[in-house]
């Protein structure tokens, strides 16, 4: 078991095997086989010192693992969740699982796809991998804590979640929000729409093969996130929009920051369109792919950019205005083909319209309070607590018990980056919601994936999922 004396330690080219008679060579009679570890250890004094590195040892079956589990893990058994027998006797059909750990499903989405050659015959989306019972958690948090919870649902448009929750609570409370707070909400939610669409253009461009989009999109989005950090202290999950107003006023010089963002993003979008929309490869990969018809959108509750790409003139900001959106001028971009290409067009145009709203907010934002002065909802300023017994009581009540909301139920919707985000809030008169149901747009869009994918090619799956832009935190909650 000793190395030849002329061996230079560390020299991997020591011709042990070539000489054929090296002492380190295994004896074929005893079945002692060389492993990869012997090669790594060829420079050491004695290669076998570290114990039996044989492949049998490493892959030994654990005693509690049954053959069923193992063969399922190894893929020799394919478990089929479909109703009925797959393919009904046709041997040409095969089932593949896409996800839940797949880079292009944008989260833990699993698609069970039945393939006939390269054509998709049936698709079943399987969700729930990210389910953490946030609707149940919401019943345990006061209305003040609630926005920390909802902001984590659709993690790419957190401010829309907070806005929707706050609007629902305010509707039950019948609290008026000051105009400045409404304008700040509009500003922040439109910036969030831009950030979300930029990330979407980055990842979906990347998925389709425009690799540089990943860097460009994230780079432009960074300008928005920096502004968020300046205003709210955080890049995501801000807990900035709260029942009664917003957490803080905008920092000094915010107009310059937003103007800078508008300049950066406008130039960015122009670049992206040059990079993508005129590119023949991109057009080939996106036109006529993943089509949703108008009727399918209605039937499956598809909203947002997907519905607008299919020719449905539905934007919650226009149809059911909230937070003062009716005072801003903007267009709702629409296309009619309902394919992946049209969704790109709609989203790029939506960002431009959001920037129009931002410019109007900069011009027209009124002075005043950034949150309601109703002391039942808003904690008093720190200085007042030392002077006023009332203020102390309000402060204590809000931070121990939380404010109470009159009994009732309401449905509030906002236009999030992905579509209609709705919350159904039921109050029993206490300081915590009796029930908070969240209608995430991605949930409906994942449900509509079989409509888009059936009878298309497997290679188009990625482009279609990317265009639907599902956020699994929103789907599974």
């Amino acid at each position, binding site marked *: 078991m000793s190395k030849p004396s002329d061996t230079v330690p560390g020299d991997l080219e020591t011709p042990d095997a070539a000489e054929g008679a090296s002492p380190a060579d295994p004896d074929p009679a005893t079945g002692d086989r060389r492993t990869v570890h012997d090669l790594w250890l060829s420079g050491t004094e004695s290669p076998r010192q570290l114990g039996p590195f044989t492949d049998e040892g490493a892959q030994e079956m654990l005693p509690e693992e049954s053959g069923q589990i193992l063969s399922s893990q190894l893929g020799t058994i394919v478990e089929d969740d479909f109703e009925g027998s797959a393919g009904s006797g046709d041997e040409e059909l095969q089932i593949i699982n896409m996800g839940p750990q797949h880079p292009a499903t944008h989260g833990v989405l699993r698609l069970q796809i039945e393939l006939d050659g390269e054509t998709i015959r049936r698709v079943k989306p399987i969700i*729930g991998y990210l389910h953490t019972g946030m609707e149940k958690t919401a019943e345990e948090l006061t209305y003040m804590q609630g926005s920390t919870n909802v902001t984590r649902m659709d993690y790419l448009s957190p401010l829309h979640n907070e806005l929707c929750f706050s609007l629902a609570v305010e509707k039950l409370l019948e609290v008026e929000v000051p105009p400045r707070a409404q304008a700040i909400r509009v500003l922040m939610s439109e910036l969030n729409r831009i950030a979300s669409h930029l990330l979407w253009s980055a990842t979906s461009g990347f998925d389709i093969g425009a690799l540089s989009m990943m860097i460009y999109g994230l780079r432009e989005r960074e300008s928005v996130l920096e502004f968020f950090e300046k205003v709210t202290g955080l890049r995501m999950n801000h807990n900035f929009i709260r029942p009664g107003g917003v957490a803080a006023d905008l920092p000094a010089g915010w107009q310059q920051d937003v103007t800078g963002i508008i300049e950066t993003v406008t130039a960015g979008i122009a670049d992206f369109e040059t990079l993508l929309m005129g590119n023949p490869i991109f057009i080939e990969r996106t036109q006529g792919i993943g089509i949703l018809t108008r009727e399918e959108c*209605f039937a499956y*509750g598809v909203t947002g950019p997907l519905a607008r790409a299919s020719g449905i003139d539905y934007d919650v900001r226009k149809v059911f205005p909230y937070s003062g959106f009716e005072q801003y001028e903007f267009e709702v971009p629409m296309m009619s083909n309902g394919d992946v290409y049209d969704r790109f067009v709609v989203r790029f145009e939506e960002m431009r319209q959001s920037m129009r709203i931002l410019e109007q907010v900069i011009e027209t934002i009124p002075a005043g309070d950034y949150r309601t002065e109703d002391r039942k909802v808003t904690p008093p300023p720190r200085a007042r607590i030392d002077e006023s017994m009332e203020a102390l009581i309000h402060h204590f009540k809000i931070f121990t018990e939380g404010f109470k909301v009159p009994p009732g139920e309401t*449905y509030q919707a906002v236009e999030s980056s992905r579509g209609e985000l709705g919350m159904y809030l039921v109050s029993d008169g206490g300081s915590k919601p009796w029930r908070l149901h969240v209608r995430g747009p991605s949930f409906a869009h994942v449900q509509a994936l079989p409509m888009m994918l059936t009878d298309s090619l497997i290679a188009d799956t990625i482009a279609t999922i990317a265009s639907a832009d599902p956020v699994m935190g929103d789907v599974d909650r």
Partner: protein
Amino acid sequence: MTSAPTILTATAERFANVEFDSVLGDVVARAPREDVVGFLESVRDAGYEMFIDLCAVDYLVRDPRFDVVINVVSLAESSRLRVIIGVPGTDSTMPTITAVYPGADFYEREAFDLFGIDFSGHPDLTRILLPDEWEGHPLRKEIAIGSVPVQFKEANKAQ
């Protein structure tokens, strides 16, 4: 029945046992569960073409115990309609509405998964968010937070 929107006048006449109401500016219709499919069909044909949402609420001590809440939208009228169906706790079933609004499929599965409401006639009423082998329906009010042992809790005991 005066609070029914004008495009639903005929529907309101046909379904006399559906109560229309206005709650905080929203149009709400309380429908008995036997009539829900026919009523929704009539509502859809009247112009509420877009399915938005379906969810369940557990009121625990109230009778009927559960509410199933359906949200639909009419784009032509810019109008939202909320249909509420009371479902008793002793017999928590109601007919599926997937034949009227196919988009209710996932939402009904979610309501079944989290509340145990049985939508009779649903094509594939299985759990959607929780694992198939999960027992119970966690959003029901009798199940408290922390009362269900979850898998990773065993990790501490093993050491």
